[in-house]
């Protein structure tokens, strides 16, 4: 045991100290932060002061369109052709044309002319501004008080919450799917990334010819297991650091760039409601707040759905299938490394290992998601080669206890079996040089007496 511990330490420390490891570990959260910050930053620069010329032949909106900090209106007079010519000479964002035939009861025919394509955002804002003005004028025409409507609206929004109880099922399926697929994806990549590292490590020992020195001191099995466990620890360290660093970086970015963290759903709901109720709140903001509150509702429903998931069970299963799957495949990757002399020869042996992984990966967000209790999902989540990925997708949907236990038991048996095979191939392979190995040869190794 002491020797395995030494091997684990070495495998772990040499990898963790590598420049590539440190760079990868630091860079990934930074890239994440960049993905978060750069779009937000781009939006802020493109937002700088837009000016829209308004040619209003009806006179309905003449001075009703209020200037905003980043959206200004310049009224024009004359014909449309003249206005177009004038607009061509300026660098204003767009020309808003309201034709004479425009009627607030039949609000059609408004056109935006622009040199470049108008951004969706600008278009929506202009639409909102016009809509609000039209609504105002309709209120005046029908003698209704706007604030009454706002109150009514709030009532409607309350009923919407009760309706959304119906929709919760929908939301739940999405959240459940996300939870399952996320776990499956992480397991898939972990097996691949670190399984290949095991293989490389074994090949390195073979090509460096240190293997004979090593196995005159330790048992081949100890060396193999030490490597597998050491590399697993490297992977876990990396994931853990990614999580911690991401949180730190995201937090840092938020405080430096003033990008607000997404408010909690409740806060959003509250602020959204206030905005709607407040009479003197800017329409624009009110709409925005309304949109926000809708988004917030979805988020909060998602959160409820998420908290409704058996999180404890998912985490336990994740850890189990994560380690089980890694051990199952890791020892096979180790065996491949032992069987070949260099990495270019690994292809033919990689194939049968990657096929079940890829199939279960593809199946998990097609057939399995569509029908988490169907026969394909069932069998793939029982068979050890595919269960680490497929079962992770099924667990959030709820899996009968006996299926879960059977799958776990088979996975344990599975990795004991692959480790046994791998150890037999390994102990023969590591001392074999310059021989092209095929499957027939490999199967003979299983029964060699060493």
């Amino acid at each position, binding site marked *: 045991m002491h*020797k395995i511990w*030494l*091997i684990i330490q*070495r495998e772990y420390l*040499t990898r963790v100290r*590598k420049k590539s490891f440190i760079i990868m570990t630091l860079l990934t959260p930074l890239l994440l932060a960049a993905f978060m910050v750069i779009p937000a930053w781009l939006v802020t620069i493109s937002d700088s002061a837009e000016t829209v010329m308004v040619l209003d032949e009806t006179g309905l909106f003449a001075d009703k369109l209020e200037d905003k900090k980043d959206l200004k209106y310049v009224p024009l007079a004359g014909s449309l052709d003249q206005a177009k010519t004038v607009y061509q000479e300026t660098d204003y964002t767009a020309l808003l044309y309201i034709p004479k035939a425009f009627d607030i009861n039949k609000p059609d025919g408004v056109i935006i002319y622009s040199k470049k394509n108008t951004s969706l955002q600008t278009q929506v804002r202009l639409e909102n501004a016009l809509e609000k003005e039209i609504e105002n004028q309709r209120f005046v025409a029908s003698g209704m008080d706007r604030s009454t409507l706002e109150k009514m609206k709030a009532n409607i929004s309350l009923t919407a919450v009760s309706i959304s109880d119906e929709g919760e099922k929908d939301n739940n399926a999405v959240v459940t799917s996300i939870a399952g697929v996320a776990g499956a994806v992480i397991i898939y990549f972990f097996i691949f990334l670190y399984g290949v590292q095991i293989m490389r490590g074994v090949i*390195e*020992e073979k090509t*460096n*010819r*240190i*293997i*004979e*020195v*090593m*196995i*005159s*001191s*330790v*048992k081949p099995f100890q060396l193999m297991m030490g490597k597998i466990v050491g590399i697993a620890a490297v992977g876990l360290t990396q994931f853990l650091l990614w999580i911690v660093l991401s949180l730190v970086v995201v937090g840092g970015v938020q405080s430096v760039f003033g990008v607000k963290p997404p408010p909690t759903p409740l806060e959003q709901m509250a602020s959204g409601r206030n905005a709607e109720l407040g009479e003197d709140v800017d329409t624009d903001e009110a709409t925005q707040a309304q949109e926000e509150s809708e988004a917030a509702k979805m988020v909060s429903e998602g959160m409820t759905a998420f908290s409704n998931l058996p999180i404890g069970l998912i985490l336990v299963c994740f850890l189990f299938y994560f380690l089980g799957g890694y051990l199952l495949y890791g020892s096979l990757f180790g065996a491949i490394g032992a069987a070949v002399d260099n990495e270019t020869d690994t292809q033919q042996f990689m194939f049968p290992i990657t096929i079940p992984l890829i199939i279960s990966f593809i199946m998990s967000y097609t057939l399995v998601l569509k029908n988490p209790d169907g026969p394909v999902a069932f069998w793939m989540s029982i068979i050890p080669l595919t269960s680490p990925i497929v079962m992770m997708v099924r667990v959030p949907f709820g899996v009968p206890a006996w299926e879960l236990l059977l799958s776990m038991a088979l996975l344990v048996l599975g990795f004991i079996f692959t480790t046994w095979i791998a150890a037999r191939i390994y102990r023969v392979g590591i*001392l074999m040089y310059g021989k092209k190995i095929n499957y027939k040869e490999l199967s*003979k190794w299983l029964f*060699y*007496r*060493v």
Partner: protein
Amino acid sequence: MSILKIDGVTKRYSNHTALDNVSFEIPAGCIFGLLGPNGAGKTSLIRIITQITGADSGEVYFKGERLKPNHIKDIGYLPEERGLYKKMKVGEQLLYLAQLKGLSKQEATARIKEWVDRFEIKEWLGKNIEDLSKGMQQKVQFIATVMHEPALIILDEPFSGFDPINANLIKDEILRLRDRGATIIFSTHRMESVEELCDYIALINRAHKVLDGPVKEIKDAYKTDTFQVIGNGQLLVTSPDFEVLEQHESHGVFRANVKLLNNTSPNNLLAYLIQRVEVHSFVELVPSINDIFIRKVTETHHA
């Protein structure tokens, strides 16, 4: 007392036999040559002794006990194919390998310091193995082999890859280790390279032990009582006690190989020669291990 006893060891691979009923003993505190051509089975035997593989039948006894995992720490092994972790620092690597042999961290650190001082390579400790020359790597590997002070040191082709200066340095270290009580096994196909160092040898050919024993005895057994004489004059041997096997002459200098017959002593030959020619050199022709090996192998083939 023998430190190692090989008793009827047989090892078969799928399509050939590497060792066939090989037995011999290695006395403690000697330098033992395990000799034979490439592919004779030397490495297979060493891998059995180092417990890398097991014998199909037969037993190996270490200090009188059946070989068991506990013996690993008493054996140091320098394989023919040298190798270390390329991206690891010399100091860390030595520490790691010593700890795997069962030394504690403190012990290992102290030993490393001792060896590094002896070889004057302190400045290498922080370097990666891949930054050292091949000869330097070999030195590091030698240290790794003997650092845990094993009772039995197995060196497979020990001098390949060393320049003459370093080869001598290693030779001196080997002798020093022997004097401190360690037993050393040399495995090589270049028999002449270790002949002078070995006290005992075993010859292996095609999975069979051909012969073994103390070098002196073997050589005596294969002596042919032949002497090489060099001198001035006309050598004409007429005595029935001597037989000239070969003779060359040029510019008045002759060179002859003379075999003693009828239990005549070398002194008789010398006395006989002195009366007739001027003797410059008189040397017994002792067969080299190589010669003995070739003779033995051809004998067994013809038999």
